[in-house]
């Protein structure tokens, strides 16, 4: 549950970063792919949000069967998400980047700042998520989707008919998280953690 939340947050952040990247001058070479990346990430968020709803809706009795379970503080999940945001801010200045007014700066400045975000957030991403493409084939090649595939691993486009196997062109290779290793966050009673503390230099 915690992992799904974290992945969905991550996807939203990457979506925003991808849009920002489209503005950067270095983004030219990738500009063709960015709308697709945006689309893919948006889709991922949608799927995740749906997945997020299923357990709570589908197994209400399972929850009720465990009345003695120690209840986590109400804001534990939120505290964890904020901590993750704090991590991306700490390592890659992500919140600074997104909260800034991007229209006031030229592409060179946006490019320089995006290097800070890219280097830091990528390092944090690789440290906490074991992430891999869903399909190893190159984008643009013909791929085959075998019967019994996980429906949420694929989004089929174009004319969908008949029974699997399906054959088509790989537009986006997808991303999959193998494992998530986030720091343990200890909930502070009733208070959400700080994303970035105010810094004051004492003299």
């Amino acid at each position, binding site marked *: 549950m915690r992992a799904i939340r974290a992945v969905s947050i991550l996807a939203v952040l990457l979506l925003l970063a991808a849009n920002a990247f489209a503005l950067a001058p270095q983004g030219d070479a990738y500009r063709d792919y960015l709308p697709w990346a945006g689309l893919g990430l948006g889709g991922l968020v949608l799927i995740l949000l749906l997945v997020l709803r299923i357990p709570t809706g589908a197994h209400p009795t399972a929850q009720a069967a465990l009345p003695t379970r120690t209840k986590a503080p109400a804001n534990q999940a939120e505290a964890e998400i904020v901590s993750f945001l704090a991590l991306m801010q700490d390592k890659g200045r992500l919140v*600074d980047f997104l*909260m800034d007014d991007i229209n*006031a700066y030229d592409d060179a400045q946006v490019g*320089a*700042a995006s290097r800070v975000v890219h*280097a830091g957030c990528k390092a944090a991403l690789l440290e906490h998520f074991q992430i891999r493409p869903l399909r190893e084939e190159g984008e643009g090649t013909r791929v085959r989707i075998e019967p019994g595939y996980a429906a949420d691993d694929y989004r089929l486009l174009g004319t969908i008919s008949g029974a699997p196997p399906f054959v088509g062109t790989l537009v986006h290779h997808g991303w999959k998280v193998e494992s998530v290793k986030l*720091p343990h*966050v*200890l909930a502070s009673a009733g208070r959400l953690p700080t994303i970035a503390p105010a*810094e004051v230099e004492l003299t």
Partner: protein
Amino acid sequence: MAASFSLGIDLGTSNSAIALADLDTGESRIVEVTQVLGPNQYGERPTLPSALYIPHPDEFPPNAFPLPWNQEGEPAIVGQFARDRGALVPDRLVTSAKSWLSNPHIDPRQPILPWRSDIAEAKLSPFECSRRYLQHLKDAFLYLEHAQGRALDLADGQIVLTVPASFDEVARSLTAEAAKAAGLGDVTLLEEPQAAFYAWTAQAGRTWRDEIADGDIVLVCDVGGGTADFSLIAVTDVDGNLELERISVGEHILLGGDNMDLALAYSLHARLAEEGKTLEDWQLLALIHAASAAKITLFQDPTLAEAPIAVPSRGSSLLARTISTSLDRALLEQVVLDGFFAITDIDDIPRETRRSGLQEFGLPYASDPVISKHLAGFLGRSLQNVRASETLSALVGARTETRALMPTAVLFNGGVFKAASIRARVLELLAYWNGGQPVRELQGFEPDLAVAKGAAVYGRHRATGRGIRIRAGTSRSYYIGLETSMPAIPGFRPPVKALCVVPQGMQEGTELLIEGREFGLVTGRPAEFRFFSSAVRSGDAPGQIIPDAERELQETSLLEIELPPVDDLQAGQAVPVEIDAVVTPLGTLELWMKHTNSDRRWKVEFQVRTE
């Protein structure tokens, strides 16, 4: 009771790690270390940064740093967050505590760290810092194994703790004592370059014996974040079996990859200043990190001509004030390869800078940054050491070198050597010193956490009695200073003679009584002896007298002993004693004063000589 697992602990100057070896298969794996990652946050990392942060009482919310095995948390923070936080508040940060253990001018039990800091909170001693790192490693190990369903009892384990080869007996026994105080019990000590060698034999599997042969001399060249450590291992064939003997160890050199990152950052800083871009102190810190990352990128991908660097501003506007520059290959090679690994001559060794009267007593950072010169100095001293003993001379065979003992193969260790071009440069340097004859690199170099893994492998060899062992023994010879009795002459200080009490290479688990040298100790009155050592006098035999200790030897510490009242002797009467040297099976040196007329003996304590 037989050990059921082997635990290797690498207590590093900058990073520490633990590895666990399976006694049956010999496989070793790194055990991640649970540590504080931020206020109210903890998690696992492959290593524990050897950093300690002493927070101000109002700096963080109360109880902000609980650990799974300690809900209250320690007042001082150890690990990743300590390092991150301390980079911004350096006067509350302790680093390199380990190097202070071998500092001859400072008593490592005095609370002196953070060094030269005026904080109001209680300071800690280098010994106490090492103890806390070890305790953290122990607690984290037991916690994680337990959390994963393996309840291990340390008493069932063979525990091996690594120390720099350059550590003398005082620093070694302090380390062993810190481990004991941390609850690790009696640990076995192992020199780090030897651990790297064991790790190499383990990961190369059965093929490692094909890579080395009779007559080889292997240089273990270990350059980590903050220190450089060298050792030579001789390979001989005895009745068809390869035998290994560590024949020489280097000095404690405080020089490593961090120095390279700093040098790069300062070069880039100077370049930015020329362009009229100024950096705040904080940005310089970010520049060091960025330069380090750019260095790795360029070394990893030889096709890149440059790596971009962006230094963020400190304020919240990232877009307005990010400074960008780049690290190009020419600058990288000029700073790292030519600056630290210059092609220098074999007799070009670092200048001695010791003994200037007004020298500050800080950590003895290497004053000469050229690692090539330190390596040349080491190989020169190694030849001197080998020549001093017939056994060692015979071991390395007939050699024509006159200035240095040249290795035939080299095993690299340490993060610095992940860069293929740095390895290539060292090989080029060795070939140059070797008259053009190449020195081969032992393949299968795996620098990540090799020392911890090697320590676990060695522990397995000890526990099972299987597998290769490097013959080592004490890396130095040790001497006790004797007062010279001669009439006082104004303006002339008589030379101090020294008696050899421990020969170089004295094996673990052996004992040596220095016969024919009686000392008279008076009960109830403390007696002090000066204690000397040498890493280049392999030929000295126990009982031998060195005429001028101050010129020939290095002063290590002060020995102190106070005899308790002895039943059958009146107080104030001299007790005749002889010196009894013991190297314990765990690898620590003990000196005892043995009563000549009975079996009674008293242990001598090492005191740090403070000037």
